């Protein structure tokens, strides 16, 4: 094999690896949204802003008290859970109950919430870029592979690798929670048929609140995991909300396995797209996929919700 071909293979594999690692993180972001949409049919346009909140918590934890991001996960998860619970209980639930001329008031409400969150961050923390400069931020793991007589060198970005691992762990934990615990089963029941679930004695109001909290916690975790590798500023959450939708729609609402697949697909598409097609338009690809999947495969790539 010639060095040029080996070089091409190396580039391709590298891009794929980057895409998969990114995809793991995306899966985490999408999981929260998928739960919320699948269980409550609520569209949360503040999803990215929730991630931003978690990132700032992580940032301040590190800056003020030198708490390592992976450790601060232990704090971020419950805090974000509570924030989600509060938003659902005090803001979203009341709106769901009222009947108004403009449908989609619930969606608009989340737009308002997102605006408040990102602008509060702007007011209190300014627009300056922040970073969480952990020692291992640029640590890379190398792996040399022999291919057809040539050696190609693949590099794995350490923080992304850890993020991928933790994302899988959290995803697995969520899966077990949904399938093995009583609360998990109640969530799945409410997702399938809210009225029937209520008639069978499930406190759907409480389940809704818990689910939103879970969704917020998951996207918060993604934010914390992202903190070592991304610059942080108030608007950072903005592009992640559409991504969460794309993943949710690709994987089928409420479908945990689907969200993971969706995340990986999106991560790969962006990675491949940015290298082989065009850097500027890579986000556009996501949007187009989103609309196409909504129209032609409303139940996602994997089919109906199996939570």
């Amino acid at each position, binding site marked *: 094999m010639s060095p040029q071909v080996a070089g091409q293979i190396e580039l391709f594999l590298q891009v794929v690896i980057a895409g998969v690692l990114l995809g793991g993180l995306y899966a985490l972001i999408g999981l929260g949204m998928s739960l919320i949409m699948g269980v409550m049919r609520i*569209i949360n346009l503040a999803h990215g802003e929730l991630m931003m909140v978690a990132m700032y918590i992580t940032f301040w934890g590190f800056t003020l008290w030198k708490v390592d991001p992976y450790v601060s996960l232990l704090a971020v998860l419950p805090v974000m859970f509570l924030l989600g619970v509060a938003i659902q209980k005090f*803001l979203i639930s*009341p*709106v769901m109950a*009222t009947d*108004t*001329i*403009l*449908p*989609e*008031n619930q*969606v*608009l*409400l989340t*737009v*308002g*919430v*997102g*605006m*408040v*969150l990102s*602008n*509060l961050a*702007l*007011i209190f923390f*300014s*627009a300056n870029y922040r970073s969480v400069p952990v020692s291992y931020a640029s640590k890379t793991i190398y792996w040399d592979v022999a291919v057809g007589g040539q050696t190609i060198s693949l590099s794995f970005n350490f923080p992304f690798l850890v993020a991928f691992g933790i994302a899988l762990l959290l995803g697995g934990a969520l899966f077990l929670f949904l399938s093995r615990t009583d609360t998990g089963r109640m969530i799945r029941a409410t997702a399938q048929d809210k009225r029937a679930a209520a008639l069978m004695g499930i406190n759907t109001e409480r389940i809704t609140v818990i689910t939103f909290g879970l969704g917020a916690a998951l996207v918060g975790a993604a934010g914390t995991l992202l903190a070592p590798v991304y610059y942080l500023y108030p608007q950072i959450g903005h592009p992640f909300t*559409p991504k969460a*939708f794309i993943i949710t729609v690709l994987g089928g609402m409420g479908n945990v396995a689907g969200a993971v697949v969706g995340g990986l697909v999106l991560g790969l598409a962006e990675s491949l797209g940015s290298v082989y097609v*065009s850097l*500027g*338009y890579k*986000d*556009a690809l996501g*949007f*187009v996929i*989103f*609309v196409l999947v*909504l*129209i032609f495969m409303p139940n996602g790539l994997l089919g109906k919700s199996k939570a």
Partner: protein
Amino acid sequence: MPKKLLFLLPLVLVAVLPLFWTNPYVLHMLILCMMWSVLGQSWNLLGGYTGQVSFGHAAFFGIGAYSAALLVNGQGIPPARAWLGLGLGGVTAVLLAVFIGWVCFRLRGPYFALSVMALSEVLHLIAINWKDVTNGAEGVLFIPAFNDKKYYYWIVLALAVTNFVCIKYVMKSKLGLYFLAIREDQDAAESLGINTTVYKLASLLISAFFTGVAGAFYFNYMGFIDPGIVFDTAKISVMMILVTMLGGAATLAGPAVGAVLYILVSEILRAWLGQGHLVFFGVLIIVIILFFPNGIVGTWKDRQARKAKGAAAAGVTTTGGGA
């Protein structure tokens, strides 16, 4: 007859205002008020009256602006090109609306809203990346045709009045009732003989047309386009919704009232808070949705209706259900 005079008199006053009050800042504020009134009314036609909530109307605003810009080369905007630009802005917005309608009306409710938003973001990205045509993220910069703001004042006033009269007339006609029927129950509307696809599209086209013209006006007036503004979901799309909701969706006066309040509040906040003043609008959206979902005009109308019902109940006899 006297009722029409009630509208005509303030209109005349508004029209002659710039002859007496020449403060450019005040004129600028009034121009923005009227432009946003057009934007609100246009969104309201599709969202409030037809029940199709779009989160991506910035697409039409932006494409209107860029269309007008494409007509111009050289340094300044010749007046003739400016007029042409207004028309072209409306036409391209309509063409875009045909495409967006064809794609997105297959979806209902929130999914329709999201898909329009997605396509609007795609346009945003195209505007930033297609540097040959749009000059990319740097935007477009020209010298406006007229020096004196009062000409723009009268142009946008004419636009606002045309827009208002058009929508008022539409809502009184068969078209308007069909829009309402679609909003209330799309499936029932279908079996009542309403081709919902066609009529939803009609609503979208009218809505997009005026939005596009407003976008072209924006370019002609400001002389520049920042793709990060004209195609922005938060600054344009969401604000169009806010203006309508604040004033009252599905009312004729609502968007106009909302527009004036929006500009007023915006200016005060910008001076006072500077960065992050949008936080107030976020809170406002939440408060409106939770407590005043029908907006200012809507809530006022509800109160009037309740008062009327109270008065009627005091003096009416129960009419039976049988025939």
